[in-house]
């Protein structure tokens, strides 16, 4: 069992990357943090089983992947589209994943959001804000948000020098 300070330091150093990893597996946004919390609870209890030469983030990502697969399996028993898509995505690596830690990505994204026109920022705020996380909007809103995501993706890659 790790001491609380060790665990807290690991948590703060890795939580952004772990949550991003879970999101990139295709878990809906509303469930990403719940799964991440389960991952850290398991990690807290099983830290002494981690081999000394394995970095915490690698161990955590392995646990996160298992949690995601269990979550997908529970979600659909008949045909698991989410699991199949996750397996297809697992085989590719992206420039954003290679770009560094989650904090840098988040800072780059915030800088890119500031460059958007005010109505676009307002749309993103309404789409992603606390009150709207369950409501993903009409098809028009979905397309508008997709275009904004594409613009942000391009901007973030430029910010990080990976474009």
């Amino acid at each position, binding site marked *: 069992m790790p001491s*609380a300070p060790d665990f807290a330091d690991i948590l703060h150093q890795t939580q952004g990357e772990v*949550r991003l990893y879970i999101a990139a597996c295709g878990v809906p946004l509303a469930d990403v943090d719940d799964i991440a919390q389960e991952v850290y609870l398991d990690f807290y209890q099983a830290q002494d089983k981690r081999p000394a030469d394995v970095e915490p983030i690698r161990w955590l990502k392995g646990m996160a992947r298992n949690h995601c697969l269990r979550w997908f399996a529970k979600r659909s028993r008949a045909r698991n589209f989410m699991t199949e898509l996750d397996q297809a995505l697992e*085989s590719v690596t992206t420039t954003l994943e290679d770009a560094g830690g989650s904090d840098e990505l988040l800072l780059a994204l915030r800088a890119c*959001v500031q460059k958007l026109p005010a109505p676009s920022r307002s749309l993103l705020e309404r789409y992603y804000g606390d*009150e709207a996380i369950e409501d993903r909007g009409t098809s028009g809103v979905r397309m508008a948000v997709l275009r904004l995501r594409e613009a*942000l993706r391009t901007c973030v890659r430029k910010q990080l020098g990976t474009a």
Partner: protein
Amino acid sequence: MSDTLLADYLADRELEPEDADRLLALVRADPAVARRVKELLIIDDLCSRAFAVERRDFANRALKATGMLHSKRFFAQRVLAATRRGRAAAPVPRSRWRLLPIASGLAAAAALAVILLLADRSPRDVAGAPAVAHLVGTAQLTRDGSTTAAADGAALRPGDLIEAGSSVGIAFVDGSRLQVEPDARLRLAADLTRGATLERGGLAADVKPQQPGERFEIRTAHATVRVIGTRFSLSVADGATTVAVSEGSIALSEPDRGERIVRASEVARAGAARAGERTLLLDDGEDEGRWTLSTNTPASTIRRSSAPGRIGRAARIDFDADDNEHPWVLRRLDPQQGDWRPYAGLRLWLRGQGTGVRLLVEAVQCRSGELDQRVHFCVEVVDDRVGWRQLDLPWSAFRRRDYQPAAAPADEPFHREGVIVVSLVAQGDAIVELDQVELYGR
């Protein structure tokens, strides 16, 4: 690849079976498509973390959850140990039946211990956390004379100085939270486990009840706020400290005035400016349903929702205005809030988006009690900046509005008698948030 297909998938990660097959085939056939999907999932999560305030406190919530696990395990061990001790020390019973209640109690305690060990993961404190708080957002952090850019989730230690370019949260390990305004300057107490000195700017505080022997204090140049467990906002400006309490109570002490208690809905000031001023809170923003939406034509629409506010929640209003018609929201007030004569003006917090849209803040005077004889007075405000600002609107700034009901008395001056409504009119598309609407200057 069809953008509609991708947009629908990203909206909720599910698709109809036929569409799911199409997306899977595309992703499997072309690694470039797979990379695009994966990067958009990453951007999606980053956007959510940037805009959803509730997601910014993840590290602290996870710490609390593990702390709960730790403390429940400790409690369960104590119960099991007590159970064993109880068995060992119990006197020899004279009757088998006398043992039954004890055995039942011990069995229940042991069962409870096992259940707690296995099942309960709800939040509580973390024992032995390395820092007193964590940052929610990003800020400049000065520690031991060295200044660095601190990332979201950075651990904060006693004596740290935080300077935020934008609003930033300070999440303490006991669950208490300070939301610090842009350009504020806050130093965590060096000698306390919880507390801080606000050197500049403002903050909103949500402080958990303190245990006996614990203290949570926020100091300014003019006063010390001792918190027992409450929600309030605090600001340092113009040579004075202002504290507005929305829940519970605080003790405000000033060097030359001693300590006084400030209770919910009260505002107190310390320092030179505004000393002794009293206010009356008209709306705390906690229930957006108290704001009535109004529009004269279907071409204009208006929606309301709740958003994080200056203190607790704020009423968020989304105006979609037709060119020829201006929608508005109005707040009817309790009858006892109808006498505004002793006060100097209306004050409120407004969060705009820098749209340039003109907004009218109205006070509607109805001296006769007949609504069709009401008279509208207003002050024009332009939504010319992003973020929160406090508007001080003295009565002298209110002018009779062009629009009036047909039966409105022609030359009635603004007496502030029988006033029962505050409203906000938007002369264009705008999203605004309203909080802490109050009368001031009594």
